[in-house]
């Protein structure tokens, strides 16, 4: 199924190529617009007033903006790492030990995925306020704003990682793990030397997806975040309601560039490691083959 074939030049084929190109233009039109407008010399983003590099200078010099991006990166790294670890363990367990509990667990995962984000957001807000402790302002030990973002973002991400890892493990032959057991490898060693390397591409895809979902999360963040740890999307959201300055587009362009570069690096590593990077799409299509 992976062989290329010469494309016939008939009407249907020309139509499909045209459609493909139009969709790409549609997907990139607003991105390119934002990148172009990030060089806007004017005071408001949406009104073009000549070319200038000033927005970039101002974006880099703005401490509030920088701290919101930093908060977002911390929130995204923490929640993605958290979700990747516990989601991987649960995904492997759900695939290898099917039964009543696995079924119940997968129902909960499905519920997480179909609940509108706004409902999660209000439920978490009430819950964090009620619980206090590490999630409230009265504790001296942890940054509670960051704790709220970590847990708030980790819920959806964990559900996604569980599905991706489970899809990968279901498609994997169990005989390698059985062989290791026959050769007297204890469970921990079996997991570390056989299972984990085999599922690693799925874990990586799950981590990246969780990271980007967290980085872009607006609704949950705007409900649970507190002053002092405002994440980037909430900062942008408040600017949307007030005045939109071109600096926002500049910062966003810098972030886009950095993300694309780091993803290209990860893709390169995954490809060299021989892993398949299609777990993400497999999981979205409903799991195993």
């Amino acid at each position, binding site marked *: 199924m992976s062989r290329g074939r010469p494309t016939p030049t008939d009407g249907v084929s020309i139509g499909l190529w045209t459609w493909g190109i139009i969709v790409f233009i549609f997907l990139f039109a607003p991105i390119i617009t*934002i990148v172009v407008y990030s060089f806007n010399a004017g005071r408001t983003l949406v009104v073009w007033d000549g070319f200038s590099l000033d927005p970039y200078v101002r974006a880099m010099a703005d401490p509030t903006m920088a701290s919101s991006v930093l908060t977002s990166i911390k929130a995204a790294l923490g929640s993605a790492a958290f979700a990747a670890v516990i989601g991987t363990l649960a995904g492997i367990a759900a695939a290898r030990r099917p039964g009543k509990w696995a079924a119940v667990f997968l129902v909960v995962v499905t519920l997480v995925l179909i609940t509108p984000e706004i409902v999660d957001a209000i439920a978490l807000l009430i819950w964090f306020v009620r619980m206090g402790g590490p999630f409230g302002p009265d504790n001296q030990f942890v940054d509670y704003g960051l704790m709220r973002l970590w847990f708030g973002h980790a819920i959806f991400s964990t559900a996604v990682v569980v599905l991706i890892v489970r899809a990968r493990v279901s498609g994997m032959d169990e005989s390698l793990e059985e062989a290791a057991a026959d050769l007297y490898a204890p469970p921990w060693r079996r997991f570390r030397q056989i299972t984990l390397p085999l599922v690693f591409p799925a874990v990586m895809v799950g981590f990246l997806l969780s990271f980007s979902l967290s980085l872009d999360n607006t609704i949950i963040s705007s409900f649970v975040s507190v002053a002092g740890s405002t994440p980037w999307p909430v900062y942008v959201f408040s600017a949307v309601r007030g005045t939109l300055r071109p600096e926002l587009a500049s910062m966003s362009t810098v972030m886009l560039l950095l993300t694309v570069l780091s993803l290209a690096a990860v893709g390169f590593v995954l490809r060299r490691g021989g892993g398949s990077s299609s777990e*993400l799409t497999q999981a979205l299509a409903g799991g195993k083959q």
Partner: protein
Amino acid sequence: MIPALPAGLLLTGFFLVPIGFIIFYSFGYKPGLLSSIGVDRLSLDRYGEALNDTFLLTFGNTLQIALLGTALCLFIAYPFAYWLSHHVASRYRSTLLAVVLVPLWTNFLLRTIGWQIILSGDGWLSKALMSAGIIHQPLNILFTRDAVEIGVVYNYLIFMILPLYVVLERMDPSLRQASRDLGAGRLRTFLQVTFPLSMPGVVAGCLLVFVPLCGDYITASILGGASANMAGQLVAAQFLMAQNWALGSATAVVLIIAIIMTVLAAGAGLAIVTAVLRAHRSVTLPGAVN
């Protein structure tokens, strides 16, 4: 299932229990101006209030936008995924798929503002269309339903493309070949072989687009202005502005139930159509034992 314990605890402690509280609070009331919730008297009254005319109108509006948006996503994504999986040489496919994902790495609010710039009456699209003579007055769709529809289709299109691409990419070309060898034309092959086989992708894509779209209110508030109120906004407003947790909770519960009912109704409709088509097209092979 021991390794699943941390995830189980997280989802129980930070999803099931908080949602349980929302359901519990939906039976409560707002005791006074400064207090958000009272639960010493429980009643179904908030549901009566939640199902008022504004909610029904707004939910009807949301449902229309979501259903049309899902249909448009399917219509746009299907030929695109088919093209990517069958007409692009295999060595370029994963690169192009990665490029499709690039818009996801820009903040979605800014992407939506990108559309605001494009669609505005003095934006470049308007000017280009006017100088090409396609339209004669400046574009006037920003802050209308059309702009909202463009925005939601844009923001959720990728989640339709991915599952469709996966099923179409895996489909064995020999099945279509067999259909053609048996005398079916291109259209018939598509309708009776390719499309039915891609149903899991179609269903997954529709769910991935429809469900989050029903709860989204931010896209609509940026591109639709005051004219596009979405159901999610009603829930948010009860918590952020009215400070009426009971009514907000009841609205949230009604929203979830309405989404699940719509999905189930669509699923039932699909099952009936499939069953009818199966019965209609059933073939008995002469001499077959079974």
